[in-house]
């Protein structure tokens, strides 16, 4: 289990982390969310001591994380980077060996992951000769080859085509069912909702919401209300209402005790109701609420 407690980090006058923390149980996938500049990347760097925190603690299975423990972690930074002129296979073996694998274990692990990710035919090519997507796969293989217990991925889905997104989601699920703990950041909230059991939302250096996604939804006092009248979005006249317009899709977020029957009646009075949904909030709604408050 990864536990991050009360981490503070200041860069000059900029406060990047201000008492941030979350925890993930073994074998769970946590989506780490937040607006740009909220402190996601700094937080991930803290796990690997790439950024040394001013205060706070990172523990793995109850013990403070040290260099030895970190070798059991895999990391894919947001700024992708490998050696462009080195052969893909040999540089992945190099990185796996740096993580503590023997030469033969490293070789085997690299072959395995290049195969799983579908780039085993490019093992002897230089990295710079690979397409952008394949370089991304090689980057992932570098994080995966040491068979980490904890995998930290900064924006792993950025730049992937829909098929790449599907196959990465599938890979993450399989790893998690094998007991690998995964933390990844993303701006694609529907994807996070699809893949993660846990979420942590960070804003201005503090984690403003975290926990099991299903529980958070269940405990939320907000509801998503979508009403279309005559095929067009229809907004009820309610006091505590938030209207969200997203790519032409319009829905409202209302309190859980909103008068559903009255709203439906009002909608029917306005015309023919073509759509009416009153449901738990989606992750985007929770995110917006957490970040705005």
């Amino acid at each position, binding site marked *: 289990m990864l536990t991050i407690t009360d981490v503070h980090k200041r860069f000059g006058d900029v406060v990047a982390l201000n008492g941030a923390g979350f925890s993930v149980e073994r074998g769970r996938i946590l989506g780490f969310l937040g607006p740009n500049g909220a402190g996601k990347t700094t937080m991930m760097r803290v796990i690997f001591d*790439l950024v040394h925190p001013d205060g706070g603690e990172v523990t793995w299975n109850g013990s403070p994380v040290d260099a030895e423990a970190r070798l059991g972690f895999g990391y894919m930074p947001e*700024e992708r980077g490998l050696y462009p002129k080195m052969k893909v296979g040999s540089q992945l073996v190099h990185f796996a060996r740096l993580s503590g694998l023997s030469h033969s274990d490293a070789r085997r692990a690299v072959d395995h992951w290049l195969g799983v990710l579908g780039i085993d035919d490019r093992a002897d090519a230089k990295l710079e000769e690979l397409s952008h997507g394949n370089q991304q796969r090689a980057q992932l293989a570098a994080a995966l080859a040491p068979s980490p217990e904890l995998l930290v991925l900064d924006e792993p889905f950025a730049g992937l085509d829909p098929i790449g997104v599907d196959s990465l989601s599938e890979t993450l699920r399989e790893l998690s069912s094998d007991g690998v703990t995964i933390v990844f950041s993303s701006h694609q909230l529907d994807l996070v909702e699809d893949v993660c059991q846990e979420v942590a939302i960070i804003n201005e250096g503090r984690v403003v919401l975290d926990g099991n996604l299903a529980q958070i939804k269940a405990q939320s006092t907000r509801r998503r209300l979508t009403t279309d009248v005559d095929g067009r979005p229809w907004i009820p006249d309610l006091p505590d209402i938030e209207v969200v317009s997203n790519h032409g899709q319009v829905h409202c977020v209302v309190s859980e005790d909103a008068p559903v029957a009255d709203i439906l009646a009002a909608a029917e009075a306005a015309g023919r109701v073509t759509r009416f949904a009153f449901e738990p909030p989606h992750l985007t709604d929770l995110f917006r609420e957490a970040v705005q408050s």
Partner: protein
Amino acid sequence: MTPWTQVWLLSKREFVERGRSKPFLVIMAIIAVAIIAVGPVTNALSGGEPEATTVGLVGTELPGIEDELRTQGDLFEIEIDVVRFAATDAAENALEDGDADVVLADGNRVVFHDDTSVRLTALIQRSVDTVVTESTLEGLGLSESEIEAVQNPVQVSVATIEETDPQEDAKRGAAFVGAIVLYISIIMFGSFVATGTVEEKQNRVVEVVLSRVRSWQVLVGKVAGIGLLGLLQLAILLGAGYTSAQLAGLTDIDVAAIGLPIIAGVFFWFILGYVFYAFLYAAVGSTVSRQEDLQGAIMLPIVLIVPGYLLAIAAAENPDGLLPRIGSLLPMWAPFVMPVRTAAGVAALWEIAVAVIGSTVGAIALVWIGSRVYRGALLRTGTKVKVTDAWRAAAE
């Protein structure tokens, strides 16, 4: 997995990847071939032996003059060839064409083409004196020993008050070559450290590396791997130079006795000088994020290295001069200057001790300073990082 195993893996990568890069191999092969070629080519151009001086004889010939010219030639250390001309015209033409260097006409006139030579004139004058006096004395009925006593009444002896080392020039020359090799090697491999550091920042691979190892391991691995490559190149270049010297046919010079101590000295001082400058190169390299910005940043080590090189040249000319002496004692220049002065045999033991200790302490200080700047600057990308900011950031 111990930290040092990781350092070894990192240095192995540096050594292998840089060592098999084509530009590096090509440059190295060209330099090695050029060095090997220098010896035999110089040998061929100089023709091996100095050219003989041709003395032409025309008109009435003194008996025995040819033998006497040769005898005097041995004393004057000039090899003499003698040719005879039937007429003054022919002799003058030979002077004109360079077929003769000087002509003795009728045993009493010395003719040059344009420039006269005091040595050749004296040589011919003495030859003429000797044969004429000899025949006069013979005519007076003197015996051979009496003639010899008149001709050479006193044989002066020659001595110097200071003993000179006949191989001194060769020693200085070899030390000079050693200094150039040191200079090139430290600049070249120091730059490799700086370039490698910037490459890792520019390619962002540094974050992938640093998630596995500490920054000091990256730095030490890089300096060690590139340094080992430097030692390998030194071995090849010095081996080539040694081979070249042997191929040059330097018969009167003991190549092994002069060359081997200098080679050992160059290796020793390369290690100290390289460590000193490699950590400086790494520190300045880590402050920039793009190769384009590197040129400006590496001016600092270059500005420090160039005076060392100039002092080494000065030391080859005059190993006991004031500036070379001072330079050979200062940590940043000792690696270039001290090997030259040691090879020339003028460095006192205490001076060598001061140079070695100073450079070692200086290198250790730069390992510390360089590592700290490197650690503070490594993850900062974008604009150039100020050294002072990197220094402070490393404390955070």
